[in-house]
């Protein structure tokens, strides 16, 4: 059970729209190493965890990841406000726009829709914790490569 809080984990306030940046950040929403995968991974794995500490921490981290998902969604929403057709085209966002306009849709930067194949839940504590370590490492690497692309 969850209770919604009408607040972001950290406030998001973006003055200047930037559809090119939105395209890249989109991967943090519904990409292979994004927040949707992270939350579903932890919230699914916790059912078969054998230790109470792990049930607790996967529940609480999975919940926090939903909060991250919401912040990333807010970032994408604010980056794509009030765009002209020219701006959308110039940023290479026209392919996204034709399917979703400026709706926030869980997909990777390359436009691949979110799939549960990004995550794993094996019902085995060591396997699942290794999956989690690998996932966090990949998410970190995705952030580093987004930064070094000079777009973010």
């Amino acid at each position: 059970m969850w209770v919604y809080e009408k607040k972001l984990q950290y406030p998001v306030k973006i003055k200047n729209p930037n559809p090119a940046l939105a395209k890249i950040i989109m991967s943090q929403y519904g990409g292979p190493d994004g927040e949707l995968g992270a939350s579903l991974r932890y919230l699914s794995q916790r059912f078969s965890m054998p230790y109470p500490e792990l049930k607790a921490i996967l529940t609480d981290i999975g919940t926090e990841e939903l909060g991250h998902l919401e912040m990333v969604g807010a970032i994408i929403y604010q980056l794509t406000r009030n765009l002209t057709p020219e701006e959308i085209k110039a940023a290479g966002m026209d392919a996204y726009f034709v399917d979703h306009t400026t709706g926030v849709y869980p997909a990777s930067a390359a436009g691949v829709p979110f799939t549960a194949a990004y995550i794993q839940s094996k019902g085995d504590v060591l396997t699942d914790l290794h999956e989690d370590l690998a996932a966090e490492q990949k998410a970190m690497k995705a952030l580093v490569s987004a930064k070094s692309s000079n777009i973010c």
Partner: protein
Amino acid sequence: MSDRQELMQKIATYDFAITELNLYLDTHPTDKDAKRKLVDFEEKSGILRNDYEEKYGPITFRDTPEKRMRWIRNPWPWDICEED
């Protein structure tokens, strides 16, 4: 930044520490120092939350029975508002 946003930022700051302390305590439940910090931050966040809800409307639906219109109304957390 508006008064509302400044207050929300303070709440978010305490709440971030609360979230992370809570995660730590899931696997270190006997750490007294962390527990003490958690109680302290929860108290501080609680005071600010009461103040925020009084002025700007409920943060959770549980507080809404007599404040339905204030729960519904903008801004929602992802909105850019006129006050910015």
